[in-house]
């Protein structure tokens, strides 16, 4: 095995076990790993952001592609630094206001068209046919039930989120069904997630037993 690879593996094992030791309790080994992680990752992100945004997009964009619109972004970014001077720190609210305005506008339209319009559209389906225009009652009993559950579940789920009416009487009962549907969703999400979490641990164990200790062929 190459020396570099060997160092990498031993270092990896040292850091992996340090993090896992947190399960037993806080300890200096974990603190060391945490300190290394925080410092190096903050540096990593700054470097990535610097080369990608400031250099590739901003500097190259302005000097080589002549996209002078980007200068506005540069000015906004620079205004952000006014925070360092307490007298004129309030100017840094301008770029912030810009960011929030842009995000509000961007999200409003995108969420609206993709989450509201598309999902409502997808919920509108014939209950008895297997597709629009197919012969009547061609769908199986099961598929009819499914469609009723999907349309009804979406409907009652929305009732649950209603803010301007107390959950009482028939409305309350519908909201109750709604929260049950949402609870099934959460249960399904959880059951599904367990698998994903396990595979990450398996990956690490594979590294410890295989790459480091060489117990797995």
């Amino acid at each position, binding site marked *: 095995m190459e020396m570099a690879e060997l160092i990498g593996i031993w270092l990896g094992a040292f850091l992996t076990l340090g993090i896992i030791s947190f*399960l*037993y309790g806080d300890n200096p080994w974990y603190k060391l790993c945490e300190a290394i992680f925080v410092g190096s990752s903050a540096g990593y*992100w700054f470097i*990535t*952001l610097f080369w*990608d*945004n400031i250099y*590739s*997009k901003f500097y*190259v964009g302005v000097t080589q592609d002549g996209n002078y619109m980007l200068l506005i972004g540069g000015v906004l970014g620079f205004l952000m630094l006014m925070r360092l001077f307490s007298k004129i720190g309030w100017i840094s609210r301008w770029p912030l206001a810009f960011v929030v305005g842009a995000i509000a506008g961007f999200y409003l339209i*995108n969420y609206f068209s*993709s989450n509201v319009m*598309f*999902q409502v559209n*997808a919920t509108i389906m014939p209950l008895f046919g297997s597709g629009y225009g197919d012969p009547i009652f061609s769908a199986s009993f099961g598929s009819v039930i499914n469609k009723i559950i999907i349309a009804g579940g979406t409907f009652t789920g929305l009732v649950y989120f209603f803010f301007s009416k107390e959950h009482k009487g028939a409305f309350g009962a519908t909201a109750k069904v709604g929260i049950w549907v949402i609870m099934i*969703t959460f249960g*399904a*999400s959880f059951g*599904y*997630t*367990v*698998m*994903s*979490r*396990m*595979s*990450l*641990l*398996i*990956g*690490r*164990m*594979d590294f410890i*037993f*295989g790459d480091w200790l060489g*117990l*797995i062929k």
Partner: protein
Amino acid sequence: MTNIGLILSIAAIIGGLLWLTIRSLSGREVERRIIFLFIGIAVSVPLLFDITFSEKATPIVKGVYDKVDNLPSGSVILISFDYGPSMAPEVEPMSNAFIRHSLAKDHKVIIMGLWATGQSLGASAVENVIKKEFPNKIDGVDYINIGYKAGNQGVLNVIITDFRKMYATDVNGVDLDSVQIFQGIRSLKDMDLMISVGGGFPGIKEWVLFAADPGNIPLAGASAAVSTPLLYPYYPMQLIGLLGGIKGAAEYESEMKKNYPQFADMPTPGIEMMGPQTLAHMVVMAFIVIGNLSFFFAKRRKE
């Protein structure tokens, strides 16, 4: 030898669970460290003793497989690496399987990433899969890695109209205009299939909202199991198929092995990882049962 170890460890797990049940039922606190220890053992044992199960592709996985299989050869497939090293053990088997399958079908593969960390993972896929297993495929002709650009969904907003506004070169600094694979490709709309491999933000959802929907481009997803339920609503209208977690990977690998003799010996991390998964799942289910039993008995005792 392996069998003895296996039997011993399974016996240890079952014995431990029994002990845990008795202790919980008698109303005594069980320290979380003991729970942690169980999971550690349940995951390690099948790894050390190599237990596997066979898989059959579900329709949602078959959707992706058939699309890749049925595209005429020479089609352009874009694979986006939208994950970091922490998610890699789970989703890397899928991105590798896509690359193998696409290249075996003589499709052209464009690799990119919406995650900063995706760039080097894409590069290592080129090194470890393409260069080793497909030595006669040429960089810039059959495949290319154009890497990562910052901007999350903003990147998609740009490349859906023009790749070159975001990407002047590939990761090696080669001008996109000079590579053969990019002749005639201007934007995402020129892709025959896009596959986003990931499970966080930005990821498959952003690909749906900002690329596949507005551009009406076929999109498939491969996600960490955690984000899969969240993506089901997009199938089959906005996503042609979806691989969820290691199980999805194992199904895809089984399907490839079944239909392509040349993949008989390919690495199948997905199938192999299902062994420990299964055991860990059973232990988690045992925990839920034991937890609820003790809760139930504690309530009765109170009454």
